[in-house]
């Protein structure tokens, strides 16, 4: 038993982000395989809507879908409405960036961390929604 454990191949080694300070500890990123980013036809993937509502002013925003550190899809909007990502999986992140001159509300149509809807005051809109 001990022998088999000894001979077992080590799991794929995590790659850390290079920093100028060797003592720092950063978040680990797993290695990517050929199938890791495939969402088409995956049973656990689902369409997700991101709805932007601009109140008392105008706004402009971009929603970016990331999977395992890779940009999968990016869509922009410049008035109240929705963008749809057709194949979203758990652990994906939807990054929201933009500006609103009034109040803005962003709603993601699935469970996320942080929870949506998220309300923004006039100014920059910045959030990263982790799909649960």
């Amino acid at each position, binding site marked *: 038993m001990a022998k088999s454990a000894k001979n077992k191949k080590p799991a794929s080694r995590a790659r850390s982000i290079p920093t100028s300070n060797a003592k720092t500890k950063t978040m680990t990123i797993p290695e990517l395989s050929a199938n890791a980013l495939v969402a088409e036809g995956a049973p656990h993937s689902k369409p997700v809507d991101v709805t932007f509502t601009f109140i008392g002013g105008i706004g402009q925003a971009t929603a970016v879908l990331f999977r395992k550190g890779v940009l999968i899809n990016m869509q922009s909007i410049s008035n109240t409405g929705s963008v749809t990502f057709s194949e979203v999986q758990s652990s994906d*992140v939807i990054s929201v960036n933009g*500006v609103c001159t009034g109040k803005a509300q962003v709603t993601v149509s699935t469970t996320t961390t942080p929870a949506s809807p998220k309300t923004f005051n*006039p100014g920059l809109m910045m959030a990263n929604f982790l799909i649960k």
Partner: protein
Amino acid sequence: MTAKFSGLVLLILLCLSFPATAQKKPNPILTADSLATGNYKDVLNSFFQLAFDQLASPDKEVRFTGTPFAVMAKLDSTFLLDKKYLESKTLRRINYQFALRLDTAFKFNGFSSGIKYALINKRDETVSQAFLDMVLADTLAQQLLTLNTIIGGKISAISPADVQDKIAAEYDAFVTGAKNFGGLSQQLQDTILAVMRANGNISKLAGILVNNKQFNMAKTADSVYQDLKANFNKNALLTIGVTDTTYRDQFVFSNVVFQAEFLKGVNKYAKSRNDLEFNARAALQLVDDTLNAGRDLKRALFSIEPAFNLVFKTRTTQKSYLELKFSTAYYRNVSTLYVGEERDRFFLNGTIRVRIMNDIWVPFEIKYDPKNGNLFGFLNVRANFRALAGAAKQL
């Protein structure tokens, strides 16, 4: 009677101020005007204003100013949605007012009304695509947005899921301002710094974060936006309007005033914390000529009043708390003169405006007639309403 009225005014002001102090997070839509100067709010109001004018003089006035847009949005909150909000630009450029005039005994002394339209309003950043583009083109704003996007990518690559969830929540606390940079876990701090150093566009931001553990992303983003907005609010504003007053015993105009007013910030993009505004007002006033029998509007008085308004702002919130307005006023009687009356008169005026609450201003006006050596003083109160809070919450 005076004491009773003063008590009533005080009570109304306290009632008006209560919602503003009780709300921890005021509705952002309705605080769009909170950084505006009191002088700007007197020239063009965005929602509602209640004014108590010339409290200590024989002709007192209680005046309500509003916009048709405020009423429409109160009745139908979808007016606040961006598309309708843009379409309602004209409605928001109109101000109307109703006032009750009171005599020394606080009895009804006439009714007045008026309408004003902003011919030029380059200050309304809420509908300006140019302002939006200006914010997006700002270097620091771009760096913050880039950082947010890259961190989003990094979070998507974290495993296992529980750590990923924890980091996502922690980053959200950072981006919403709940946590300073120094309050983040060492792992997230190091990752943010690593991301910044690896990306040339945001590498300068890394230097700021290393030297300032109190760095707050939300406050930094807000200060970038507020600085740009404060400068945008110094743009030109030109209004035209007409006001009228009736007699106390008859619904006939006793006074009609046609006026134009211009307002523009002088020190745009200056590094000075305090602002200087230029304000010019021209008016033609038509009143009853008492030499003629009956009631008419045959006496005409033209006036022009150029002024500079010095605005003192707080260091951190950039809200104006004190304003000093200096102006000269020239009056010309363009109709038949009464006995002993001068055709041209010249005044030196000064107004001190003190903000006593977030939306309540107390302007004290002093007029000096250099020729005759007369000095007059008027005490006013202005309360700007944020009455659409409920409507905004319904959306």
